[in-house]
């Protein structure tokens, strides 16, 4: 044989493969990726990686993708193309409304299990003010006002709504899992 076979650990990659890996890495990264980092992960020299990134960016440009590979804050990032911001924004707004913040979820849990519950009672159990969470839950129609409690300040009482049952797939409140349902499970760990 005429060629000297080098004993390298890594197999040498073609430029096409390098471009694909660069694409995958930029995609999974939380932050814009620098050429330096890419070169380290790939164990390729920076010039090769720089060329690969630029080629990749151009590819996205040429095929009029909905995405772009752009240089930002010294690194490279995958992002949507600005032309489509309207549709993207519209989509982000219509994301499932069944999603709740942790504060709202906590407040909902207290109301579900302690209903009817007043604001001071919820404060007592959660240890934090829950006003905005209660507003969110009322807006999402997961809870309803249930009249005032005949006590100092006559605070409003809240309970879960019919929508709550529907969204959480419950026939009625007796279907809520009880502490006992999970006690065995929790104890058995």
């Amino acid at each position, binding site marked *: 044989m005429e060629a000297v076979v080098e004993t390298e650990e890594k197999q040498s990659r073609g430029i096409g493969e390098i471009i694909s890996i660069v694409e995958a890495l930029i*995609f*999974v990264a939380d932050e814009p990726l620098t050429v330096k980092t890419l070169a380290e992960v790939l164990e390729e020299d920076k010039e090769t990686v720089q060329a690969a990134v630029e080629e990749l960016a151009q590819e996205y440009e040429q095929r009029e993708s909905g995405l772009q590979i752009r240089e930002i804050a010294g690194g490279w990032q995958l992002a949507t193309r600005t032309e489509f911001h309207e549709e993207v924004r519209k989509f982000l707004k219509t994301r499932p409304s069944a999603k709740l913040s942790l504060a709202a979820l*906590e407040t909902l*849990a207290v109301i*579900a299990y302690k209903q009817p519950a007043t604001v001071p009672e919820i404060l007592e*159990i959660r*240890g934090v003010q829950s006003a905005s969470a209660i507003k969110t839950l009322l807006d999402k129609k997961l809870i309803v006002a249930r009249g005032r409690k005949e006590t100092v300040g006559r605070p409003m009482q809240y309970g879960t709504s019919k929508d709550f049952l529907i969204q*959480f797939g419950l026939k009625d409140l007796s279907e809520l899992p009880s502490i006992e349902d999970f006690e065995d499970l929790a104890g058995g760990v």
Partner: protein
Amino acid sequence: MEQPAEQLTFDFDRVQPHIVYESRDDIKLTLGAFSGPLDLLLFLIKQEQANIFDIPIARITDEYLKYIRLMKTLDISLAADFLVMAATLIEIKSKMLLPREITGEPEEELEDPRRELIDRLLEHQKFKNAAEMLYERCAVEQAVFRRGRIESDENNTETNASVFDLLTVFQKILARHKEEIQMEIEREEMSLAEMLKRLKTRIFQVKEINLLELFQMMGSRQELVLAFIAILELVRTDDVKLLQRKTFGDIILKKV
């Protein structure tokens, strides 16, 4: 505590249980744990190279009991289900020992005492294979990654919720609540004199105190009551006055 759209990765604890025979009567458990008595039985049947449809029940029962004894000597806590199975095996074994002619019926029509066990073993084996398939699927899936966080994720601090989440969250709140109560008990009790002193020092420093904020700072019901009495006292002695700048507005404690 927001939940980023994090990709879970799993590594199934796939250490297969294994029994090594040191000598005729001495078996050694090397690794892992059987997922249940049926799992152990299947293993023993395989080890004995026996036919699942014609289990040599006496031999398998012996092996099974040997394993259980071993577990006990190793001080491994044994699930009750393992003992239930031991009893079942012994029962089948004794039924098998009964002479069949006594019934006077042809052998084919007699119900095999092992029948139910065999059915359960076959059913269990099916799901064991299904579990294996799931394992492999997940292994492949672990080679696929989802995108990193992007800007739109950051303003989306929402969590998906199920009824189980509701219960878990509720239990966490209760646990947190219990901790707080315990902390309160540990706190030293404050006297009215101390509360008066504390309030006076504070009002001299900041000139104005929002009453609502002050009450919210109180760690316990007792402190709250003391603060209330202390304020009444300070108003009475004309050290402070109470202001309300607009109707239903916050009440302000102001140094005279």
